[in-house]
């Protein structure tokens, strides 16, 4: 932070403002390492104070390790290979507030008149992690009266194809009080960093209100700032623990945890912000289930339980089972459905459990209907036959409802680049013809009839955005045949039991 002299106050007054003497090298121990305050230049004209936080990378990992059993709750912070020692992160923000606590409050014991005065300030942050890039940096600081220079830092000049890193070199110039400048940095550094391991303490709201006083309320990006600042309030450690096992698998495979742990999207299709097409889809599925009079229903691949929730609203569905392969999705579903607060009678209607349609599953037999809503497109095509067998061959509900995107409609999505799928995890998206071919083949092989319906606006040229197939199990000759076999066997079995009893008598006699 550099300032220049102003009338009645030489630049070296920065020392009074920060409460740190310009001719000393001072160090302070903070929770994540040693903070040094130094003055590379200090005369009446120009004075620069530098804050250097020496993060102890080993302590960072070992400390994090203590939080969860047998491993860090957040694998990113648990890495020894970590940008924290180099980048201006939340750790720096915390150090800033601790080291310059009086300046932060706008107090100066020796020169009480100084803190209230604005003065020309230049602040340089050499490596600022900025999720959102230079654009967002500009949007956050410029409304506060700063002239912003944010230059992206290349990831590795040896590999120009890798592009820019998430860091920028930030220079802010403006006429503000030192306290204001510190408070801006204190709030906005972690907001830009947006690191997943930004632990939010219970009093974080208080801190935000205090530090944001006077500037946050009118800030055009106020929503984004508060969201990012507070977004991790909800038991972050808990969240991290839930995905620990999965994160370890990612780690052992040199993969980022997010690439495997992508089953839950906390933003999309929430109760507060439902996606219109998803609503239409659920209406269509419920309609199909009501038409066939299904009462006991499986939602296979229930995700975060949106459809399960809709089904529970209708008492005709007496038993609703949500199955998903993602434990995290199921936990989110349980939370959203408020399973722990349901009455016993309500709770008795619903069950959520982990399962996978790559495997047959005895728990899934004997239901009226199964729904596979937006599920098949998440399965690699070579593994679809196993899913088909698990659902149509093994579980064999009377009705199966399948929905999947209609790829032809993609040209109507303005935001979707040509040739792209709608979701990064989609392994394929089918045309109406492809879906029809698949569904009819499945129906033929497993003794079902099938009919199709569009969901969403039915475009004359490309069809509807979602396509639905409803399968009805045939009462086949094979089924009746096996019933006959059964009754035959029952008499045999009855016989058997008598025989068995005699045997027992015999053993008893001899005993």
């Amino acid at each position, binding site marked *: 932070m550099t300032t220049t002299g102003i009338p009645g106050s030489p630049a070296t007054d920065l020392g009074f403002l920060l409460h740190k003497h310009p001719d000393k090298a001072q160090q302070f121990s903070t929770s994540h390492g040693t903070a040094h305050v130094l*003055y590379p*230049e200090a005369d009446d004209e120009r004075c620069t104070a530098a804050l250097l936080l020496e993060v102890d990378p080993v302590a960072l990992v070992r400390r994090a390790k203590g939080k969860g059993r047998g491993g860090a709750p957040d694998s990113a912070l*648990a*890495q020894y290979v970590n940008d924290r020692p180099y*980048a201006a992160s939340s750790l720096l923000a915390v150090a800033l507030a601790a080291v310059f606590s009086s300046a932060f409050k706008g107090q100066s014991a020796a020169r009480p008149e100084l803190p209230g005065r604005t003065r020309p300030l230049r602040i340089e942050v050499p*490596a600022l992690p900025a999720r959102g890039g230079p654009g967002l940096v500009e949007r956050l600081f410029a409304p506060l009266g700063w002239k912003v220079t944010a230059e992206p830092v290349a990831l590795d000049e040896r590999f120009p194809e890798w592009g820019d890193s998430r860091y920028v070199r930030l220079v802010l110039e403006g006429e503000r009080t030192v306290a204001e400048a510190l408070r801006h940095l204190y709030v906005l550094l972690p907001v830009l960093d947006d690191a997943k391991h930004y632990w939010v303490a219970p009093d974080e709201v208080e801190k935000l209100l205090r530090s944001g006083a006077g500037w946050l309320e009118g800030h055009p990006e106020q929503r984004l700032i508060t969201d990012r600042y507070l977004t991790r309030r909800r038991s972050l450690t808990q969240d991290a623990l839930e995905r620990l096992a999965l994160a370890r698998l990612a780690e052992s*495979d040199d*993969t980022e945890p997010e690439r495997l742990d992508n089953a839950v999207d906390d933003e999309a299709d929430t109760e507060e912000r439902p996606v219109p097409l998803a609503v239409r889809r659920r209406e269509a599925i419920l309609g199909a289930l009501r038409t066939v009079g299904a009462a006991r229903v499986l939602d296979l691949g229930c995700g975060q339980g949106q459809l399960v929730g809709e089904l529970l609203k209708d008492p005709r569905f007496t038993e609703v089972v949500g199955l998903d392969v993602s434990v995290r999705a199921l936990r989110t579903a349980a939370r959203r459905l408020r399973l722990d607060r349901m009455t016993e009678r309500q709770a008795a209607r619903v069950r959520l459990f982990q399962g996978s349609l790559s495997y*047959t599953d005895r728990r899934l037999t004997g239901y009226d209907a199964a729904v596979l809503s937006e599920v098949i497109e998440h399965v690699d095509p070579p593994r679809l036959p196993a899913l088909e067998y698990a659902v149509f061959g093994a579980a064999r509900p009377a009705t199966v409802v399948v929905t999947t995107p209609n790829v032809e409609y993609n040209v109507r999505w303005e935001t979707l680049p040509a040739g792209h799928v709608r979701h990064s995890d989609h392994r394929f998206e089918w045309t109406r013809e492809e879906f029809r071919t698949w569904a009819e083949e499945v129906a033929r092989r497993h003794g079902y009839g099938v009919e199709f319906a569009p969901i969403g606006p039915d475009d004359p040229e490309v069809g509807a955005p979602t396509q639905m197939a409803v399968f009805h199990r045939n009462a086949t000759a094979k089924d009746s045949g096996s019933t006959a076999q059964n009754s035959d066997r029952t008499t045999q079995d009855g*016989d058997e039991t008598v025989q068995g009893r005699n045997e027992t008598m015999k053993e008893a006699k001899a005993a």
Partner: protein
Amino acid sequence: MTGTTTDDVRTLAVPELSLVVLVGATGSGKSTFAARHFRPTEVISSDFCRGLVSDDENDQSASGDAFDVLHYIAGKRLAAGRLTVVDATSVQPESRKQLVRIAREHDVLPVAIVLDMPEEVCAARNAARPDRADLPRRVIQRHQRELRRSLKNLEREGFRKVHILRGVAQADAAVVVREPLLNDLRHLRGPFDIVGDIHGCRSELETLLTRLGYALTRDGEGRPVDAAHPEGRTAVFVGDLVDRGPDSPGVLRLVMGMVAAGHALCVPGNHENKLGRHLGGRKVQLTHGLAETVEQLDREDDAFRQRVRAFIDALVSHYVLDDGALVVCHAGLPEKYHGRASGRVRSHALYGDTTGETDEFGLPVRYPWAEDYRGRVAVVYGHTPSPSATWLNNTICLDTGAVFGGRMTALRWPERELVDVPAERVWYEPVRPLVSEAPGGADGRPLDLNDVTGRKIVETRHLGRIAVKEENAAAALEVMSRFAVDPRLLAYLPPTMAPCATSKEEGYLEHPAEAFAAYRADGVRQVLCEEKHMGSRAVVLVCRDADTARERFGASDGTRGALYTRTGRPFLDDKDTAGRLLDRLARCIGDAGLWDELGTDWVLLDAELMPWSLKAEGLLRNQYAAVGAASRAAFPGVLSALEAVAERGVDVAGLLGRQRERAGDAEAFTEAYRRYCWPVGDATGGGRLDGVRIAPFQFLAVEGRSLAGLPHDEQLALADRMIAAEAAAPYAHRVLAPTRRLVVDTEDEASVAAGVRWWLDLTAAGGEGMVVKPLQALARGADGRLVQPGVKCRGREYLRIVYGPEYTRPENLARLRIRHLGHKRSLALREYALGLEALDRLAEGEPLWRVHEAVFAILALESEPVDPRL
């Protein structure tokens, strides 16, 4: 019906495992009787339970809860196989009904001992007890009335034995004798030769018994009537002697003779059971080969048929043998039925766990009970024909379909050796083929969730039982289901590998001296140092052609194999490149002549695929390169600021020096990861292999054979031949990369020093490091336990990528040396054993679910909490 001897001394027979119900009015002396004949812990009294729930043994209002407790305790004891005595009046039918139900639920025999005492005796005894002194006389009278009414009904109520003691003298003189059950032959210790289903294949049976070392005795007509083993071994037949085959009477004659002579034991199969009913004059359908037996028996005389009938009638559903270590029965038996006696125990022993449904061939659908079996007792059975006999959860089915043209199999116990003979011909066409078209491979059953989820125990040949925790299975299920290649192509996952012990050498965290010393301590003399390539681990299934991939592995999309990562994910998103790579490998294997030499149409390879950036680009960009970028952005400013501070005369020499070193460390870190990154393909894309390198270092398995036991130098020699074949062909880009190696003798100081030097040179030139493996695979230490199959020694610079740019600073190294290798080593061994198991199962042609079980367990173990930097 039972127990009556003289009027003076009554001997009351009680099965060793039974529920004994004392019946008698209040004051009839039940507790005294129980205390005299049973251990205190065997007796549960209603008074005691009343006290437990209400603090008052005589509080009749607490009876309901008290009996709940009593029933609960009785149930727990019976489930654990302990004789239990219920001390309550039990004079009312309803109360006894519940006890009979509990006995049945646990498949034990209910026994009633009735104490029928004169009213005066009961009254006098109650009067002597202060807490019962004011009990109205009418209560005793009511009990007496109810007791008398009950007496004649007890057997009908389900009591298998009823002992009635009348009067004080008889009760005092009675003696309780515990008797073993018929199925309890624990005192017989064998050794045994257990023979699978025979189905009238007399000739094969003779051959098998001869192979087992039995000497046959023949009657005047040359028919075998007995067989004895010179070492006194006992044959045990698992049943299904008859039906379908050519000579059921001949088999019966031999087996009956052996049993009568004490040379064999026999349990009944469902076919004997049905034949017995037929011979007993009941109407049964002459299906499933019974017609043949009946026809053959018609040619025998009536006396023989009577003998057969008596023989079958006397068969006991199952036997517990060899001190309780072995159970033999026909169709298998879950642990809770062992040594028990009830209709359903017999039914399970004969038919297995049928679901009540039938399959498309009209045959009953069987619940695979053995998959859930977790008992310590080995269960040997037959009944379900399968291509080969294999142990599963300590159970083994010996029916290998002799009558269908398969084999007849015997198990030597306790040696656990299998001995079999081929069928002389197909005697009977099977109704259902042994395989079906359901997705799931040769066993005709697709993968089931129960194969993999929940807490699992996987039996391995090299390390015994390996447990998988539920939460680890849950994580593995998600990755396996959502990201892995088709399980049919995923026959193996590579085990994790532990690093060598932490080095105390200055400046080093890992150093080869530790690896050599550890193997020397394990008694492993020759080790092979293999260069580590710092790519990404890749397992490659290469088939000679797409047809092989389809027929052997069920690949559906015309591929000739699979290339996958250590968690089973497809290695390359781009199918085209993956296809080219597989083609190249297949061609090199072919050009090296290895298809024919190894006698196979497919090979499973363990390899390293380079560059690292090919797979780990996301990680590189978001983590490794990012850290480098941040450091390069930060340090110039930091250093110039500190220099300016120093120029102002402020003493920051220490700080400045330290920051310069840190900047240097960050630069070294960047150099470290850059070595493992380079671009691949050409600008036009299109699945080019330019820049892609693959270093195969182990041939894991080929058709019919796991190669995991091949010494590692021979393994690398096979890889070298592939490389030579590639070099001899006119390819524009070489894909195969050689693996440098060095053999070290851990006992020879000069050799060890050479090994250390080799590693220093390798890593100084930018190498990742090396893996040290016992030259002979499957090495075991002096104590007979598996030693680590390999340990890694990572280079000093490479470790910056793992422990951070500044890990070499002395204060950091000192702390980093505190690392705990125990769990990682244990994990490495367990995963190794599971990998070997998967390969063995694959090579032996076991069903998909068996191979998948082991592979899945490896993936699950990978999610165990172990320091990821090890």
